[in-house]
């Protein structure tokens, strides 16, 4: 037995309350981390609301398992009543310069809105673009999207002077609904 009784920074009642809170938090975190297992699924029946409210969801897969071999973004064009297609500026376009100091959250849209499962978000984006141009007095008839990507050359090719290859693929077109 220790000669000195253990002493802590807080009293016993607070230790019990904090212990319960910590245990609950760790249980919810564990359930989230192992959500693909049977145990995780069972635990999440009880912890899901807490997890969802606090925003415990975590994804640390950036640049994993492999970093992207290309820079991919979404290009947007708007069709005017005159029949002319104009470029809708990219969110980060005006922010681009030799040095980017500021992080633009809107840039995430350009990076992730090009996949097939994001059609719903593109449709919503269409409505916003139509409203914005309408408010600016430039009525837009339709909006179309294109996935663009810049393929990074392999290091050995880059040493030989190879340039990045720009490619693109047309996505869908949505009419402006009034």
């Amino acid at each position: 037995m220790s000669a000195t009784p253990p002493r802590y920074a807080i009293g016993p009642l607070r230790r019990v309350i904090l212990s319960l809170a910590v245990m609950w938090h760790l249980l919810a975190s564990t359930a989230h981390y192992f959500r693909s297992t049977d145990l995780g699924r069972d635990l999440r029946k009880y912890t899901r609301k807490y997890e969802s409210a606090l925003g415990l969801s975590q994804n640390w897969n950036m640049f994993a398992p492999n970093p992207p071999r290309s820079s991919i973004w979404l290009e947007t064009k708007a069709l005017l009543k005159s029949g002319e297609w104009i470029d809708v500026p990219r969110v980060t376009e005006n922010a681009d310069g030799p040095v980017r100091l500021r992080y633009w959250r809107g840039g995430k849209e350009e990076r992730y809105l090009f996949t097939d499962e994001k059609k719903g978000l593109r449709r919503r984006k269409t409505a916003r673009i139509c409203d914005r141009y309408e408010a600016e007095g430039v009525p837009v008839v339709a909006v179309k999207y294109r996935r663009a990507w810049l393929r990074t050359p392999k290091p050995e090719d880059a040493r030989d002077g190879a340039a990045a290859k720009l490619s693109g693929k047309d996505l869908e077109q949505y009419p402006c609904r009034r």
Partner: protein
Amino acid sequence: MSPVGPRTRAGKMASWLRDLPAHVRGLPGAWQRFWFAGVDARILGLMRILLGLIALSTHITLYGELPFVLGPQAELFSSSSLHSWTNFSIYDQVESVEALRQLHTLFLIPLVLMILGVGGRLGCLGVLLWYMSLHHGNTWMLNAGDRLVRLSCFAMLFTAHTSAWSVDAWVMRKLGRPLRRMLPMTTHRLVQIQIAWMYIATGVAKWDGAHWHRGTALYYTMNTEVFQRFPGLLSYEFFASWPVYIILVIGTWVTLYWELLFPALVLWRPTRILALCIGVFVHTGIAATMMVASFSFASLWGYIAYLDPDRLSRLFDRVERRLGLAPPEPPLSPEAGPTPPPDGRSAAPA
């Protein structure tokens, strides 16, 4: 029959407990030492101020993009608050851009309270609620840094972090009220677990990637145009040139193994220092070359929880003496806790 034998149910229980192996009997004590051993309240004060400043920078930089990313009028609208009441976002309650800006400005109040240390945990709670509103208001626009800050704010709520280096402490001193010099390690432990989990999760995910084993991952990462801080200045030729390329290959392997081994490395002091030094180098490099918002700063903030609290205390003492800020010894709170910790050893950071 022995006269002192276990005759009652309580006695049987006590006997059963006594018969447990020593390491099992010691578990409750070990749990309490792990979570509730005392640390200098000034460390929590420093963590509060720095975390508040990181959150403040997020608040300010978000201001210009508000109409685009938040509120029902947002172009990129993806609120999760529509799915459940637990995902409430106050940003969804406003109709106009002007109201959105006013609401956003209101959140400066908890941020300032947190940084200055006014009103106990109220400021930090307000900042956490703000981050939760951001999270539910548009899950799309958030990044890993936001996630770390949100969970760190939550961890901060477990301790009375305005007990030092705060307006609260200054007022208490003026009033002659007792101050807490020591706080439980609960926040430290939660932050340590979060940071260690983050590294091992990303390390395991990268282990399946051929580019990480081949050593080319950092080359491709640096060349991803959308993340580049110097998009026009650093070209493919620069990153592919032999001296730079060799550094990137070594950096790739160091990153992979450092992330995978981080939880083990921080258990022993010499390797902990090595792991944290590599981390400082990696995160500083990321912040200097890539657009990843507050992620690097939030990660480095978490390293404070891994630093030896006794050494930090002595450092603070020296700095305060040198600056002439060392206050007269205030009376200790009944719950002030021991100084130094009871067994005479430092409360281990990990």
